[in-house]
């Protein structure tokens, strides 16, 4: 299953809600303002690390990171993808949920 999150954890609760429902083996893709959650030193780091430790795969959309000047600060264990990679995640996972 692919979970998509698009809001910053500094502004909204969607990331927390998503991670509370992501199961081992699931993929979580951070896009738009959610990419901040995957950056080093961010207060949400512990949440993301816990998800990674629990077997959840975390991806982040590179063009959104670059727009926000955070491409050089991606936290360990998080995988960068471009839009093609976004499409691959959608097709490789049997179901998709956007956390809005």
């Amino acid at each position, binding site marked *: 299953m692919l979970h*998509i999150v*698009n809001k910053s954890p500094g502004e909204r609760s969607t990331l927390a809600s998503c991670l509370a429902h992501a199961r081992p083996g699931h993929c979580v893709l951070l*896009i*738009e*303002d959610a990419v901040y959650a995957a950056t080093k030193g961010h207060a949400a780091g512990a949440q993301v690390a816990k998800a990674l430790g629990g077997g959840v795969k975390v991806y982040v959309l590179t*063009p959104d990171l670059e727009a926000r000047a955070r491409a050089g600060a991606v936290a360990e264990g998080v995988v960068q993808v*471009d*839009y*093609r990679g*976004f*499409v*691959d995640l*959608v*097709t490789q996972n049997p*179901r*998709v949920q*956007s956390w*809005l």
Partner: protein
Amino acid sequence: MKIGVMVNEGPYQHQSSDSAYLFCKAAIESGHQIERVFFYHDGVNNATKLTEPPQDDRNVVARWTKLAEEHGVDLVVCVAAALRRGIVEQNLAQGFRISGLGQLVESAIQSDRLVVFGD
């Protein structure tokens, strides 16, 4: 693969519409089929032909029209949401059509995936 897309926010205010467009473009480039993009909630505002964004910015509406023309993507605007927000035939941009919510459910049934972009 057949992918359906839903867009819930208007142009410029939120990034949703941009993300949806770039996703569609990448999906088509990867050989997948975007059969329909369904515009709901403020997403219906993507369909107005009256926008005139600054010259140095992207033209969100024109991009959707081009996608429809070049790749046969069906751009459907929800009639109920559109009436609430003042999107009617009179200001509807090329490539869009106004129809019912059933088109969203149908798209979800017929597509292999449905990806929702919102706020």
